[in-house]
Structure formats: C-alpha cells, structure tokens
C-alpha cells in the first residue's frame, strides 16, 4: 500500500511569533513551506523558508514546486507597520495574488487571519458583536482600509470559489511572549498612554491559544467568517494595571485634542488612527467559533498579564 502523502501547507507571515507557533504544532505531521514579506527566517532544515513579495511572479514558482494542499495566511502587515501604500500592496494585492494562485493550483483549504479591528471602534457599538455586523473600520481611518479590503477580498473568494474552503478568522487582541503588535507593546511597556476618562472593555487571547485555534480551523474544512475570542473581558486600564504599567493620561476632550497630540508625538505603540480603540469598546462574540471548532482557550487573562508584569525588561 502506498504511503499516505503528508499534507503540504504554505504558511505566510513566517517571521511573526504566531506563524512560528502554528508551524511548531504542524511540523510533525505536515510538510510546511514558510514565507514572509519582510524577512527570511530559519525554521529548521526541514522547512524551506523564503522572503518573498507575493505580488512578484517568482511567488508562483513555490506553488509549482511544492504542490500545496492548503494555505495558512497569517502574513498580514499590521496597521502599525510600514507606510499605508506598502501595507495596502502587501495586504490587499498580495492576498489577492495568493488567493488567485490558490485557485489556480487547486488548493483545498485556506485559512486567512484578519483582525477584530475591521468592526471599527465607535461609541454606538453593541457588545458581543457577531460576524454579520457591518465593518465600520474603513470609515474611521484610512489606515484601516487595507484590513477591511483584505477581508472583503477573502469574502469574495470564499463565495466565488467554494472549493478553496476559505475560513476567515477575526481574533481579538493577540498577546503573549514574542508578539510584537501594538497591544502587546503597550502591555509590555513601563508607561502606557491612556485616554483620560476612557477605559473600554477589551478581550485578549494568548498566542498559544490563537495558534491552537488556527490549527483546529485548518483541520476542519468549514467555510465562513469567525470571531475568535475567549469569554472573558477586562477594561483596558485595569489590564494595564495588572501588567504593572504606569498609566499616562492623554487629554480626551474635545476629541481633536488626543488626535492632535498623538499625531504630533507619532508614538508607534499608540498610533493616532487607533485612538478610537482606546476609547470605545469592540467586544466580539467568539461563541460561534468555539462551538463549530470545539475551541476552548486554556490560558486565562491573569496568566497573560502575569507574563507582562514579570517581563518588563526582557533580556
């Protein structure tokens, strides 16, 4: 009897901590190829790793050479990185190229990482936003347009090419060891800005739990869009307190004042276009995902915050 072929999976965003966690979970059972838009990372001799621009023609060579069965697309440039134009090219045009190639080469499973930012932080947001809620982020800031467009694109492919089995995940704040996003930088800092008088409810998911969620998603080919968040909540300023951060209040009224201050300061950890997320809550409902994929996060908030409290000055 012929030996069963191990699944071939392309993982994007390999330089990120999340992709590396996913890779370490899958590497024993799958043949992986890692790519990243930003840098080439060494992931061991068994995993070919490339630094590649998805919009370039050479990207297609990987599909020809490795005959992928599935794609886990985690290579999203976050809103705090690069310029708006480069981010748009990488996130939107790069994703389009990736999905086109996936279709052309008969990929059977695609997991796309999105973000809860697409819902947008507005004063009138209800809590426990579910997947069918409108995506308001693009109306808040041009810096979030690429996040929404990436989603829209993936949605179009989801319905147009059902055989791709696309699942889009919208996680809450991913935090934990090695995570370099805005929220993780804030929780890990000594001093963290807050908008005076505002402490919106937030959700946090540990990077290892998120990696579990992605692996579970990959293994169960159910198409659709899902929020990923634990059923636990905390106010932003309370989270900072638990992480041992000194809170630095920024005047919050009238609304132009914080925007003006943040645009002047150009803080990487507290960008002006994310101001609304530190003012109004975006609490998502992750119950549909938990039910469908039998997912239960294992790392409680207290453990997450303890890590940041005890690692204020990483070696």
């Amino acid at each position, binding site marked *: 009897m012929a030996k069963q072929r191990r699944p071939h999976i392309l993982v994007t965003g390999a330089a990120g901590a999340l992709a590396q966690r996913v890779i370490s979970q899958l590497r024993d059972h799958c043949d992986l190829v890692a790519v990243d838009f930003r840098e080439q990372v060494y992931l061991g001799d068994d995993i070919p790793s490339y630094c590649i621009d998805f919009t370039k023609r050479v990207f297609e060579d990987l599909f020809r050479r490795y005959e992928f069965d599935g794609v886990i697309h985690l290579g999203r440039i976050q809103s705090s990185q690069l310029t708006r134009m480069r981010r748009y090219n990488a996130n939107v045009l790069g994703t389009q190229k990736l999905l086109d190639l996936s279709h052309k080469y008969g990929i059977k499973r695609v997991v796309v990482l999105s973000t809860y930012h697409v819902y947008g932080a507005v004063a009138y947001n*209800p809590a426990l936003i579910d997947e069918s809620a409108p995506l308001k982020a693009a109306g808040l800031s041009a810096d979030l347009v690429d996040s929404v467009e990436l989603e829209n694109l993936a949605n179009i492919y989801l319905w147009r090419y059902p055989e791709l089995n696309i699942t889009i995940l919208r996680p809450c704040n991913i935090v934990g060891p090695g995570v370099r996003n805005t929220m993780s930088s804030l929780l890990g800092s000594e001093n963290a800005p807050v908008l005076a*008088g*505002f402490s919106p409810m937030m959700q946090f998911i540990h990077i290892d739990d998120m990696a579990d969620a992605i692996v579970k998603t990959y293994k169960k080919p159910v198409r659709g869009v899902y929020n990923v968040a634990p059923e636990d*909540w905390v106010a932003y300023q309370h989270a900072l307190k*638990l992480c041992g951060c000194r809170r630095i209040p920024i005047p919050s009224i009238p609304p132009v004042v914080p925007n003006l201050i943040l645009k002047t300061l150009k803080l990487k950890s507290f960008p002006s276009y994310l101001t609304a997320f530190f003012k109004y809550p975006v609490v998502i409902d992750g119950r549909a995902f938990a039910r469908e994929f039998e997912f239960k996060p294992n790392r409680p908030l207290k453990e997450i915050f303890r890590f940041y409290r005890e690692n204020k000055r990483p070696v």
Partner: protein
Amino acid sequence: MSLASYLKSKLIPADIDEHINRIRKPIGSLGYDPWGYNNEAIKYGFTLTRQIYEKYFRVEAHGVENVPAEGPVLIIANHSGQLPLDGLLIGYALASRKQQPRIPRAMIERFFPTVPWLGNLLNEFGAVLGDPVNCAKMLANGEAVIVFPEGVRGSGKLYQDRYQLKRFGNGFMHLAMKYKAPIVPVGVVGCEETIPAIANIKPLAKALGIPYAPVALPVVLPAKVHLNFGPPMYFDDLEIPEELVTERVEQVKAEISRLIDKGLSERKKLF
C-alpha cells in the same frame, strides 16, 4: 493592605459586600461582563445609591417581588427628571430586595458612552448602551433589563408635561416576544419633581451634542419617590402585523399609566 482594599473596607459595609457576592451573574475571571459591568465597582455604586435611595429620595417601592427571580425579563417604566435617576432607583429596588435579588441592566442614551469617566462608570454599575442588539443579547443571557420606551422624549420633558406619557417605541415589545421575556411595568412617581425644567434650549443642546439643554435649577430636589411594580405581562411570539404590536405596547403603556395614578394617589406630599 493595599490602598484599594483599605478604602473598600472603610467604604463598603460588610452586608453589601456579601449581598452583591451572593447574586449570581455571568461574569469573567476578572469580575467583568462584556458590557463593562464590574462586580467590585458596583459595590461602591450600591453603597452610594443606598444613601440616595433611603435618605434622599426616601423611596417607597411596592410590588418589587413581581420581577421573576430568574430568566429574561423586561422592566418597562415611564422616564422623567432630566437625569436617569429613575433607572438607578428601580435598579436598586430590585438589587436590594430581600428575596432573590437581581442586578438589572438599564439601557442608557447613546450619548453617555462619549462622556469621559461617566460613560465607563455607568457601564461598571450595570448600565448598557441602549442598542437593540445589546438588549437582545442580554435577554438571551437571561438578564433583567430596564427599558424606558419613551427615551429622551420622556426624560427631557418639561415640568408642565409631568406624568403625561410620551410616545412609546415598539422595539421592547418585539424583543419581549422574540425572547419570551415577561414585561414588568413600573410606574415612577416623584422623579418629575427632582429637576423641574421650564424650557429646553434646543440650539444649545445641538451645539453641545447632547439630547436636551433644560432650563432648571442646578440642584436635584429631594422629592419623595414612589415606585409601583405591576404584575408581569406575558405576550406570545406569534408573527403579527406592526399595528397589533403597537396595540400590545399600548396595553403596557396603559398599565404604566394606571401604576402612575396609583403612585400619585399614594403620595401625601411632594418632598
């Protein structure tokens, strides 16, 4: 002992601490729920409200036992008095009842989340942005929800219009029917006299982005408040045309009107 625990031990009586801890609520590991309710913060709110309820407004509540001990329920009341004091007093009446207390959630105006400190504080005490999605999700979670179907039409009305019910929205009835939640009507008497307003400066309200700008004394008068909770009203979830829904809303409105008249007849003096 940290400063927070020291303040808590000094400010919050032990009986309130125990009372709040006894009430079961769907909260996360740090004491919050998705809408921002906080189990520790509410103890401060409860302690302060006890003084306001018992000493300042000397509230007399009748029929609070009509609110079911568990499951989704909509507490529907008349709205008055410029500030949402009526919601606070109804909430306290239910949260402090001896038998099977519940911490109800009050739906508040959309304007509050934009106000620094106050917005968060109200959320921590259990108030929730008045959005139909919020109300639906809370009923699905089996919560007791306080709704004022008159909205700002009721709270912003002038003293000359006191105890005249304004138009009720139909939204609460649709939710009650969908989630099979009984409706407990409440007639509030006394809040109209707490901040009597003689006029509303609409251009000022528009400029400030607030629902209304009343001309009133800058004090909250200590009017005596009567709360009358009526028996629960049950409505089936049949698909019916909107005009029949409106008829059901009118039934609730009529019951609240009856409860207001009851409160007015019980009232001996304004203060």
